[in-house]
């Protein structure tokens, strides 16, 4: 975005917040459904000082990270194998395409039966949801590697290891990061869904409780925290993607 575009966006956001505040103060907007931005900010500051809220954020963050650290390499490996071994690809890819389209949330009760309401259950469900995205990304990444570059490298005496390091990895990196980013969005959604559905701790658990008790300022404050964290992760991965994909044609 160019500078003046940023300014316009900032002005629109600021205007919307001020309008919201004014509508609540003027009694035109029900504060029990949409509390004023000033009330949300003060709730945010109060929550930030409460240790149990920080613990919940830590629990959720840990679940998300653990699920990602399991799902990303596993999904990549499976995607790589399915793309490179034609027989396995032919066997499993139709099944995978089918499962990819099924909403994963319908399997949540099964995970509760298997793991109980626990942290491993959140991680397992996060892995299950993220895995498919990363496998698809892994397949796409392998298929994006230009075969001619492999021939060129072979003609110049590259070993198998050198072909992986010099051709596969740089060619796949941008697409891998892109699928990691998509996977992360699915992962955060899955873990929060688990926590809202049933949990003993975690920010999703707090959101569900505040929602049930109609504690709207706290609920909105939690939404702000989660949104900020998700945007930060997303933007960091996107910046890495742009850095590693500088060579890709734009426009």
């Amino acid at each position, binding site marked *: 975005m160019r500078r003046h575009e940023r300014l316009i966006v900032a002005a629109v956001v600021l205007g919307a917040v001020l309008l919201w505040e004014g509508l609540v103060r003027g009694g035109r907007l029900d504060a029990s459904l949409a509390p004023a931005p000033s009330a949300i900010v003060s709730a945010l500051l109060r929550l930030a000082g409460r240790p149990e809220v920080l613990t919940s954020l830590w629990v959720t963050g840990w679940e998300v990270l653990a699920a990602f650290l399991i799902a990303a390499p596993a999904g990549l490996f499976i995607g790589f194998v399915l793309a490179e071994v034609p027989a396995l690809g032919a066997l499993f890819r139709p099944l995978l395409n089918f499962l990819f389209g099924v909403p994963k949330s319908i399997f949540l009760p099964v995970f509760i039966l298997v793991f109980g309401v626990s942290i491993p259950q959140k991680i397992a469900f996060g892995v299950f949801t993220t895995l498919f995205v990363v496998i698809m990304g892994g397949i796409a990444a392998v298929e994006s590697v230009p075969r001619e570059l492999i*021939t060129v490298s072979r003609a*110049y005496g590259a070993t198998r290891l050198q072909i992986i390091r010099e051709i596969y990895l740089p060619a796949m990196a941008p697409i891998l990061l892109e699928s990691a980013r998509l996977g992360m969005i699915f992962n955060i959604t899955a873990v929060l869904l688990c926590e809202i559905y049933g949990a003993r701790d975690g920010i999703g658990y707090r959101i569900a409780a505040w929602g049930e008790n109609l504690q709207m300022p706290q609920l909105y404050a939690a939404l702000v925290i989660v949104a900020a964290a998700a945007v930060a992760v997303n933007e960091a991965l996107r910046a890495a993607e742009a850095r590693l994909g500088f060579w890709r044609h734009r426009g």
Partner: protein
Amino acid sequence: MTRALVSLRGVSHRFGTDGAGLVALADVDLEVPDGQFVAVVGPSGCGKSTLLSLVAGLRQPSDGGVWCDGERITAPMPRKVGMVFQEANLLPWLSAIDNVAFPLKLRGIPKAERRAGAARMLTLTGLSGFEDKLPHQLSGGMKQRVAIARGLVQDPAVLLMDEPFASLDEQTRMLLGDELLRIWAETRKTVIFVTHSLNEAVYLADRVIVLSPRPGRVVDDVTVALPRPRSFAMTSTERFGVVKDRIWQHIRNAAHA
């Protein structure tokens, strides 16, 4: 004439795992002396490219053998044989200079040393000043110059060129042809140049090998007795026409057979 640098003896090549598939080349014998510029022409699918991939060591012949500088080729020999493909096939994430240096990187040569070598090759191919450009910032002709520089960076005895100008427009193709002849005159490599274009073959080469339709056999071996350096004016001389016509007869006869 000097000794043969590249020799193909009784070479046949069949595709398919058990060699039962398509026969691409049948019983090809070819001796290329050191420093010669040889063009290989023939109808589409006659195995011209297969022939090059055998010399590059990318494939093994089903029968017979290929030798380079007295050594039998069983795998790529990048220090003896450089290769340029139809598409430039540059690594899109590497700058021009790093693309040229890529074969040296594969050999584990330190960065400063390989960049110095690559810079010399870019100068030779008329690309000094473009060292740090990425492939997508270069024109088609410039990319192919980078590919030629990469083919020459290890100072191989042989340069294989697989229709290197086929995807360029005609003007660029002619300019690059002259550039190639200048580079060849400076470096005195042995060049095996596969092309669809009879004009290009006769204009560039000392000798034109004509292959038959699949399975490819050598049907003619024509010496191009035009003086060097070649000039565009020679393309309209009688001698040029006679050589081109002789090759054309083979291609036409093959199409009617």
